């Protein structure tokens, strides 16, 4: 139930973000969502794309350092308290979040949060027992198609 995220190392300089996006564009790969972590010196670009294997190949060919990480996509109700409810579950079980970012798509009443956990399997177990819906790679594609409709 985990999904693949690609991470790229970028120097914190003007124009550095353009290059990887151009590589994906040229290969016809669609970015589903992304987040950028930045420090004074460097940034880490994290990407969820429609074809991660192809994306990894084109990045490696282009000479980038790319890392594939498993993250967890969680469906969150799009209302006040939707995210807090999920975090409460994680907090109670003392599950540590490395980072997270949001993913919006066509549906009005649902959002998706991407979580990077220290212990993904542990987190999935806890969320499952509380009835939280975890989104799979194919679900994501489906959502993506839905957005396009």
């Amino acid at each position, binding site marked *: 139930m985990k999904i693949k995220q690609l991470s790229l190392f970028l120097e914190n300089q003007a124009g550095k973000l353009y290059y990887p996006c151009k590589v994906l564009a040229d290969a016809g790969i669609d970015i589903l969502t992304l987040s950028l972590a930045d420090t004074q*010196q460097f940034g880490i670009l994290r990407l969820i794309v429609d074809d991660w294997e192809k994306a990894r190949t084109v990045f490696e060919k282009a000479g980038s350092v790319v890392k594939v990480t498993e993250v967890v996509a969680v469906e969150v109700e799009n209302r006040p308290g939707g995210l807090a409810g999920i975090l409460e579950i994680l907090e109670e079980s003392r599950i540590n979040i490395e980072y997270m970012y949001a993913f919006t798509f066509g549906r009005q009443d649902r959002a998706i949060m991407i979580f990077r956990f220290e212990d993904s399997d542990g987190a999935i177990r806890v969320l499952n027992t509380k009835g939280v819906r975890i989104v799979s790679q194919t679900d994501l594609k489906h959502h993506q198609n839905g957005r396009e409709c």
Partner: protein
Amino acid sequence: MIERITAKDGPFHPASAVDFLPLQQLHDLQSRRLKETVDLAYRRVPLFRSRMEKIGLEPEDIRGIEDIQLLPFTEKTDLRDTYPFGLLAVPTSEVVRLHASSGTTGKPIVVAYTREDVAVWSEVMLRSFAACGVHAGDIVQNAYGYGLFTGGLGAHYGAEALGAAVIPISGGNTERQIMVLKDFNVTVICCTPSYFCYLIEQAEKKGMDIRQLPLRVGVFGAEPWSDEMRKRIESSSCVRAFDIYGLSEIIGPGVGIECVQQAGLHLFEDHFYPEVIDPVTNEPCPDGVEGELVLTTLTKKALPMIRYRTHDITTFISEPCACGRTIRRIHRISRRSDDMMIIRGVNVFPSQVETALLAVEGTLPHYQIILSRKNGLDHLGVLVEVTPEFFSDTVSGIENLHNLLSHSLESALGIRVDVRLVEPHTLQRSEGKARRVLDQRSLGEQEAGMDGFENFCPGPNGK
């Protein structure tokens, strides 16, 4: 000649008399002292003795200074290989001082002094100060680092022996340096030339005109500098800037210095015998031809150095100096014959950087060393390409890698290192390898000096 100096530059110090010895007398003194030194080293230093035996040379074969070319060379690696006390010619009970400096690997190079050695060091530093017009009554602000580095204490003892008042302020703390410079009526300053440029700049920012101060002499060394930089210093400060040379393996600062003529550095060759050789053929270079400076200590007791390869490139000046000194002159050190860098007086080899990077990553990443100058102090930057093995998708993961690299480099080199992680394939490569060293320190002109008594640390104690 002596009168000339006296009239122009204040009282003549008797210790400087040796600078003016008739050449035959100097020659006889050198011959006698070389024989004593070879005899001492042969009896007490196993490495030296075995090298002599290997080429079938006996101490008696050295009849005078002209036989010096028969003797084997000594290299920096010999000090490292015999760490810490292997080259000592006296028992440690006769040692009164130990200094240490960065070596080519993790271990430093240790240099030792007997009471007599410290007296010689004080004497040559006294003669250094005297040669550039410093005298009793001067107030000397000594901004070279005090500690394991030879710079601070070397200058200190010499100035004190001369009868000057020494302010042992050591390196760093610019605000305090400027306050002392002004309030204590300082007349002489010792530091790196670039740090002095920074002091001038900072003083000006405070609305202070350094030209209004009694400061008149600067004794500058421990880093590359040039005549261009001298012009800049002298035109903006009314300070006459003198180049001093030395290295801890020989004694520390005080191996040579410019006199008031500012036309090359006089070497105190009654204590340190100089040769200039072709670094490839090891044959002596005629005067005026560039080669490697090789030094032999003639009076050192704890650590006699026979034909020490400095790797500093220079030329002998054959014309007599207008100051009347008979001791030989060399041109400013123009460059080095190896890849050693001198950063704030600390010797750094690219191989040390490689070893430190290897220790963290297991394989050697592409890297580049960037030397720059900020606020008058040299900075060592190392750019390291991120490799797939060490890339992390979390900020803390990459910062952790950054910290590991910084720590490894700083503990290996003993100076602050700014590590910057860069994207792969961004460092320029020639023949598949990244260009290892980029020196962005502005030296004012193409031909830069490399006057480092390794070990001078005028920065905030190397950190």
